[in-house]
């Protein structure tokens, strides 16, 4: 082997993009990242605070696991019960509610299970089970998955059988599967509106308050992981609950629909 390719390769060597002071890592849910809101907020955060927030886009389960291992500085997720358990285990300092959006039941435009006529989300879920209409579940321990399981439980249905397909993937991949099978699926509104491959699917059911989806910001406990950038995490929290953030979050629209409602309380 001549030296040339080696030299060439070395020229392109492993520049491990060394971090300049003000970087922090935050694990967020796929639904938050897919909504497109991150692309609006991150440049403003950088401008106002000088913090470059590096996003790790994963399911709520993995996001909390990354926080517990100390691999990120903060997490922004939406699954209250899991968050409180995580805090009780000493993984974080506190939980700060930031905003909420809502889930919708997406399904075939023809709505074979008749969910449109139902009075609430639980009845709609029961109707899908009754009709044995194909339903795609995230099945990945994400916040959306946990919400779906809670709805099945409250609807008194044990989801199992040929019609219930757990794909074990992110929101987008699950939506692709639902589009391919023309199946029902529980999705957050933002991911659905931003989704590019809608095929024959449409929103069949929406608007029940039990479908509200509360996002909370949880700093990783610096006593457990001394290397976390607690000062940056605090600065980011202050920004996220500020009026600037409120304006940007409530002003964010897709197809003329407001996606998120800001509901952070002052300390």
């Amino acid at each position: 082997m001549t030296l040339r390719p080696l030299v060439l390769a070395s020229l392109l060597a492993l520049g491990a993009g060394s971090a300049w002071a003000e970087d922090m890592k935050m694990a967020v849910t796929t639904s938050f990242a897919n909504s497109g809101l991150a692309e609006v907020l991150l440049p403003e955060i950088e401008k106002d605070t000088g913090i470059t927030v590096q996003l790790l886009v994963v399911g709520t389960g993995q996001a909390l696991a990354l926080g517990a291992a100390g691999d990120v500085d903060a997490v922004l997720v939406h699954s209250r019960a899991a968050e409180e358990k995580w805090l009780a285990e000493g993984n974080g300092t506190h939980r700060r509610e930031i905003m909420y959006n809502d889930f919708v039941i997406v399904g075939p435009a023809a709505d074979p299970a008749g969910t449109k006529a139902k009075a609430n989300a639980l009845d709609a879920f029961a109707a899908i089970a009754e009709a044995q209409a194909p339903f795609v579940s995230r099945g990945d321990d994400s916040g959306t998955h946990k919400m779906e399981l809670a709805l099945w439980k409250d609807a008194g249905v044990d989801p199992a059988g040929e019609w219930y397909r757990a794909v074990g993937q992110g929101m987008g991949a699950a939506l692709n599967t639902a589009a391919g099978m023309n199946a029902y699926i529980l999705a957050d509104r933002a991911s659905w509106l931003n989704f590019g491959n809608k095929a024959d699917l449409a929103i069949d059911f929406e608007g029940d308050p039990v479908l509200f989806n509360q996002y909370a910001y949880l700093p990783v406990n610096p006593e457990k992981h001394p290397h976390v950038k607690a000062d940056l995490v605090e600065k980011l929290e202050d920004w996220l609950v500020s009026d600037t953030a409120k304006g940007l979050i409530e002003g964010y629209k897709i197809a003329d629909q407001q996606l998120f409602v800001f509901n952070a309380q002052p300390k």
Partner: protein
Amino acid sequence: MNDIWQGLAQALRLVLGLDADLIEISGLSLQVSLGATLIASVIGLPLGAWLAINRFRARRVVIAVLNALMGLPPVVVGLFVYVLLSRSGPFGVLGLLFTPTAMVIAQVIIITPIIASIAHQAIRDLWADYHDLLISLNTSRAQRIRTLLWDGRRALMTASLAGFGRAIGEVGAIMIVGGNIDHVTRVLTTAIALETGKGEFGLALALGFVLISLAVLVNLAVHFLSRTERSGRW
């Protein structure tokens, strides 16, 4: 089918428009995969040669294991490296998780067995021809390995390029240890996975075409630089 044409058109638009994000993620793809190939070659080529000329008791087992490791599932390698590099893992203090360095480490583990196995096969054939000569010249082990590596350089280049091919197209491991962070660890394959997840099949395919073109270009460049496949030289 429509998506494929759209993808091709979009790929052309991105490339001709010198899209800044595209250049960034393509550059990182090359950096990580070439870096990994370089390191894996430095380990794998001499290892393959050493295995070819040495006779020891466990040789068959070692070679069989090495061949089996060619099929290492990237997602398992990724998870393994993740657990090692996690802040809660043994190498956590280095803070390497979710950096390009972590991606290089994972890829080195994946492709070293491929490079070593192919190198071993090539060198073994060469060693059959050179055996008597090198023994009669009373050469040392290191000299034999050096000679074999040099004279087998064409075949060894194929070994390295096979490793590179696996590395540049790999997504399972680098998704886990890199995290697909925008502007930090996003490469072509993880970007394709992301766009597919968003249902943006056109853009995902466009990135796929760019990835394939890059792999072809790198192979062509290596052949050109090492002057193989030219008239009069076989």
